[in-house]
């Protein structure tokens, strides 16, 4: 066979080439590292590149494949978002607070992927502590969108999304608290899956909002996402919210088609303020589902408009509690010139956290404080119940709900940094799935002025197989996923 372009492979293709020993993991890993050297000075998707670790893991992967013990992801280069713990490799959360933090244990997803034989090429940039929608809140540097280097890649998993789009890894893991996998996937034209809450262990994911956080894959194609989910899904006794279930083979149902599938299109996801071209693209995408035999029907989820308020009370409240651990005593940044213990604590947090993290800690502390708890936090938790019920009712009538992932395509760096609320509005279509704990996927559903548009599909609790089958059917009927940003 002719030699393939190693920088343009999907995970599925790479897996097959490695298994057939047409390509070695060392060759593939070196090609990816060369690509990183070439394009990352412009894209800046990485916080840390782990070239030596990667080549060592690649040699082991080649030996394992040669001995007949290779698995689907053995030898495949990957990136992990830098809030996933990696033993001996700095895990910074893109924060000054954790700039020098070197974990002494692996996240459960890291352990599973290393056992599988995947190759770690580096750690991906994010908005500090995963709080943001543009990756501009990284304390180190912003990441650029590979489709237009003057624009943001979305966030908070902007590094992982940009790296996949730019061919700097074959897949990445991100985390999604209110859209942090799906929104950057949409803005970078890749696939991003947020699984059902509890399907993937959160052990070793540095906590932001524990009742909303979930880890998931970012990939070039839908099949790739199913292959990664096969490895990371499953019960872990070290996460008390982990669902005790034996996950299926998520690649099995792909290609079965969507004839008769009931697709709901909620009108609240096409509100004023959405870019009309994005709306047109997503409506065209929904028409493709109909052409493939799905039964498409307009519907309504009237409580959706409250999702942003609910999210921005619950997530900062949980964050204010989770981030209380950064006290400069056990690990992390520690202010030195302080008069007293209390002074040291306040100074450590003043100097260690960036503006958005402080805003959310303050917001959460306020919502939980005496006199405001009932009006904000308790009210939001009750409203959360209503959102969950609304989805449960909708999924009695529909198998899948379709919407835009984000109201706009990628915006320019700096455009929304002065107004927190404008930035928060990026996630209005993605937050409801986190509030309800249901799975959702973003696939590329068009292009506007050379920039990708995301089609979001939401499914019921543990509905990943149907979501992946639907996304796959759409992807295969269109050619958006075959396009690559021109980075040379």
């Amino acid at each position: 066979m002719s030699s393939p372009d190693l920088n343009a492979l999907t995970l599925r293709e790479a897996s097959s080439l490695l298994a057939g020993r047409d390509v070695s993991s060392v060759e593939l890993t070196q090609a990816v590292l060369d690509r990183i050297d070439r394009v990352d000075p412009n894209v800046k998707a990485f916080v840390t590149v782990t070239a030596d670790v990667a080549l060592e893991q690649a040699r082991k992967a080649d030996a394992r494949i040669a001995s007949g013990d290779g698995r689907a992801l053995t030898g495949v280069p990957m990136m992990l978002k830098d809030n996933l713990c990696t033993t001996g490799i700095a895990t910074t959360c893109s924060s000054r607070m954790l700039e020098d933090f070197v974990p002494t244990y692996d996240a459960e997803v890291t352990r599973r992927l290393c056992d599988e034989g995947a190759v770690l090429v580096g750690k991906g940039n994010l908005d500090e502590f995963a709080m943001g929608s543009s990756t501009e809140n990284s304390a180190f540097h912003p990441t650029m969108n590979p489709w237009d280097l003057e624009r943001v890649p979305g966030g908070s998993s902007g590094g992982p999304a940009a790296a996949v789009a730019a061919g700097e890894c074959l897949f990445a893991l991100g985390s999604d608290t209110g859209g942090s996998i799906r929104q950057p996937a949409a803005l970078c034209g890749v696939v991003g899956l947020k699984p059902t809450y509890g399907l993937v262990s959160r052990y070793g994911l540095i906590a932001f909002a524990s009742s909303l956080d979930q880890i998931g894959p970012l990939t070039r194609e839908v099949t790739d996402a199913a292959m990664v989910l096969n490895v990371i899904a499953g019960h872990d006794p070290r996460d008390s919210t982990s669902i005790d279930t034996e996950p299926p083979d998520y690649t099995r149902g792909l290609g079965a088609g969507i004839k008769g599938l009931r697709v709901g299109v909620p009108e609240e996801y096409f509100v004023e303020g959405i870019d009309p071209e994005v709306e047109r693209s997503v409506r065209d995408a929904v028409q493709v589902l109909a052409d493939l035999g799905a039964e498409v029907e307009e519907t309504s989820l009237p409580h959706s408009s409250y999702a942003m308020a609910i999210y921005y009370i619950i997530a900062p409240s949980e964050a204010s509690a989770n981030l209380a651990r950064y006290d400069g005593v056990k690990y992390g940044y520690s202010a030195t010139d302080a008069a007293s213990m209390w002074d040291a604590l306040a100074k450590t947090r003043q100097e260690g956290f960036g503006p958005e993290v402080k805003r959310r800690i303050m917001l959460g502390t306020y919502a939980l404080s005496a006199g405001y708890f009932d009006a904000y936090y308790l009210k939001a938790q009750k409203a959360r119940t209503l959102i969950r019920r609304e989805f449960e009712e909708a999924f009695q009538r529909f198998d899948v709900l379709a919407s835009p992932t984000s109201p706009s395509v990628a915006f320019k760096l700096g455009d929304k940094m002065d107004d927190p609320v404008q930035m928060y509005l990026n996630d209005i279509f993605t937050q409801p799935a986190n509030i309800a704990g249901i799975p959702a996927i973003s696939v590329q559903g068009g292009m506007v002025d050379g920039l990708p548009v995301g089609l979001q599909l939401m499914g019921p609790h543990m509905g990943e197989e149907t979501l992946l089958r639907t996304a796959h059917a759409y992807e295969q009927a269109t050619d958006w996923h075959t396009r690559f940003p021109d980075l040379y």
Partner: protein
Amino acid sequence: MRLSTEEVRHIALLARVGMTDDEVELMRDQLSNILGHFDSLQEMDTDGVDPTGHAADVETVMREDRVAESIDRDDALSNVPRREGDFVRVRAVLE
């Protein structure tokens, strides 16, 4: 609703985040603006609705109490900013 400077300082104290006077004023503007967007929530009728703390139906998880390998002491102390031998050095709590 607009927060007062005193309220912002009080929240910053509760959160143990140091702030300059300029930071307090900026935070006051931004938090007041964000909180204004939450007012719509009061329109929602939540009478008699139970709160949801978790998207999963969380149950208390039990396990056997067994002795097992734990994190090594040196590893556990490896990220400590001020270490003395096997101890973590802290500032005086009582003065």
